[in-house]
């Protein structure tokens, strides 16, 4: 029951937008907020793809975005690192904040943003370079390594974290495109990690892979979770249930429901979510 006292206490913990203040989060040992998005809308020319999305992404957690094809999950994902900027005629409105900084602020350089928010794509896209050069591409770009030895360490570290080091350590000069599909995707993950991002966005990373490679990468996600925040778009509900702590269900450009994965999958609040999970559509 809400007493006046409880209300005031509650107000003390809230900020203007109705979320919790940072102090409250820390003191209550709540998960830290990494991305805070409010009323995000995306237009491709005249067509509107996303309608008023309010979603929070929390640090060191895997957040899964699920929903049927074409519901806007990937579009939303690409807003987080401003990849939609590369598409002509795409217009993004709303508030998207990374650790409190407005991502679309003029003062914030998208280049800098993408060094903090990495991305792994649906189909592995290693550059036609050697495995070493693929992994070293990001650090070289941003000048993160001070010396060759430093760079070697970064490469080794990233490949190890991606679970690829043992398989390729003696053929770092081999072309990245010569690896198997699963290895290529892990190389892409290593490449993204090498830049030491805070967040890794993954757009259906396993959709082109066989079950064994998929399992490997899901294992990887769990390991990476300790150090990185991960947002994954997936059309497999089972995968979302396996790997994520929070899930958001998108439908026709709207965010229908979001919350703890367990809750979404066992006691969803919205009928649409229920229908999707039980396979009525999608």
């Amino acid at each position: 029951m809400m007493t006046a006292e409880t209300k005031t206490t509650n107000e003390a913990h809230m900020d203007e937008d109705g979320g919790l203040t940072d102090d409250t989060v820390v003191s209550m040992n709540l998960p830290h907020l990494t991305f805070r998005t409010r009323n995000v809308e995306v237009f491709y020319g005249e067509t509107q793809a996303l309608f008023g999305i309010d979603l929070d992404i929390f640090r060191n957690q895997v957040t899964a975005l699920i929903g049927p094809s074409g519901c806007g999950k990937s579009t939303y994902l690409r807003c987080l690192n401003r990849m939609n900027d590369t598409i002509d005629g795409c217009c993004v409105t709303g508030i998207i904040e990374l650790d409190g900084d407005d991502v679309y602020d003029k003062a914030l350089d998208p280049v800098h943003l993408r060094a903090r928010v990495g991305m792994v794509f649906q189909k592995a896209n290693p550059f036609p370079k050697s495995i070493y050069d693929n992994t070293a591409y990001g650090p070289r770009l941003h000048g993160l390594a001070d010396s060759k030895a430093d760079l070697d360490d970064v490469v080794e570290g990233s490949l190890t974290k991606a679970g690829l080091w043992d398989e390729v350590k003696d053929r770092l000069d081999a072309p990245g495109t010569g690896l198997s599909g699963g290895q290529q995707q892990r190389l892409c993950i290593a490449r993204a990690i090498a830049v030491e991002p805070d967040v890794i966005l993954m757009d259906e990373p396993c959709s082109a892979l066989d079950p064994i490679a998929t399992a490997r990468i899901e294992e990887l996600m769990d390991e990476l979770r300790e150090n990185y925040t991960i947002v994954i778009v997936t059309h497999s509900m089972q995968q979302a249930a396996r790997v994520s702590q929070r899930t958001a269900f998108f439908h026709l450009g709207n965010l229908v429901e979001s919350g703890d994965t367990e809750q979404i999958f066992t006691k969803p609040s919205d009928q649409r979510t229920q229908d999707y999970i039980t396979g009525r559509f999608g």
Partner: protein
Amino acid sequence: MTDRSTKSAKVAASLRRRHAAERRFRLYGMGAVAFALACLGLLFFTVVSKGYTAFQQTYVKLPIYFDAGDIDPKNSGDPKVWAKANYQGMAKKSLRGLFPDVKKRRDKRALYKLASSGAAYELRAIVRENPDLVGTTTDVWVTADDDVDMFIKGYIRGDVAENERRISNKEMAWIEALVADGRLEKRFNTTFFSAGDSREPELAGVWGAAAGSFFTLLVTLALAFPIGVAAAIYLEEFAPKNKLTQVIEININNLAAVPSIVFGLLGLAVFLNFIGMPRSAPLVGGVVLALMTLPTIIIAGRAAIKSVPPSIREAALGLGASRSQVVFHHVLPLAMPGVLTGTIIGMAQALGETAPLLMIGMVAFIVDIPGGFTDPATVLPVQIYLWADSPERAFVERTSAAIMVLLGFLIMMNLTAVWLRKKFERRW
């Protein structure tokens, strides 16, 4: 893991340099496009600015006494006799009449040069068309000499020292007197479009070369189009995937990249020397150009045929048509616009070719307008080449004008090809 702020600082430090590099790179790209387009503009500007004056020619009005005693002494009325009269003398007499003070032999020679050496032929033509002029004194407009023309157009400047220009002070005075008298005028240069080549710039025209180009391209089209289309159909529809087909395809791609002068050598060695075709005739030129254009038409034809969807072929086959019937009744008509576009572009390229035609002898000085495929002829680009070599000042403007004519034809052909493509292009 490295400290977040250190990393952030490193990234921030690199940003300015990288964005500056980005701006520079973009600038280089724009600069490259601008440079190329500027060169194009400069080329057109040079040609037009040097050539537009050629469309006008200076004419001089002379009072000619058509002496009946000179033209037709026996009063025969026979045009052949009339043609033999001394029209040159009549022109000279007229000039002497205009400037009676000119006495010295040398000065007189300079005076006569005011009118073109072709004036005599012009007078002859006038008499032939207007027989009733015989016995009268009439004012007749004849072509002025090219030096006069150049002076009137401003290419020969009066303020240059006398020994450095082609018009002496005396001649300048005469010209100015004629201008004051209304006897010197610039008019549209019909000679340029109706005459063949000539040693004298004021009498030279592109009609001979244009006719030669026409006949040559006709031969090229008549040979390259059917052979090219037939080969394209065969290679695309009927050819089995075996060694012979591969050899043929490799050859076609190779021929497309062979320098044009080698085709000229082929024409010289085989068509002129072995088979004995007539030298510098449009027939030989056409055959050589046809061999050059063939790869273009075949490649364009194959692309056009390939773009016809298989569903049409299957539908026809399903009704019991034979392979050949499918191709000739269905595929070919649908591919025709693409084939025609490729052909027009190939013809445009052939129109501009010079080197192979030099080899087969089309570089001779041809005055007559060719009337058939075996008459000696020259083509427009070769004419341009020959005129560009001539020392007379007046040929510079004529060369530029001829280039404008050639470019005009090319633009028309290319626009036709583009129009054809736009109008008949189907998106399957």
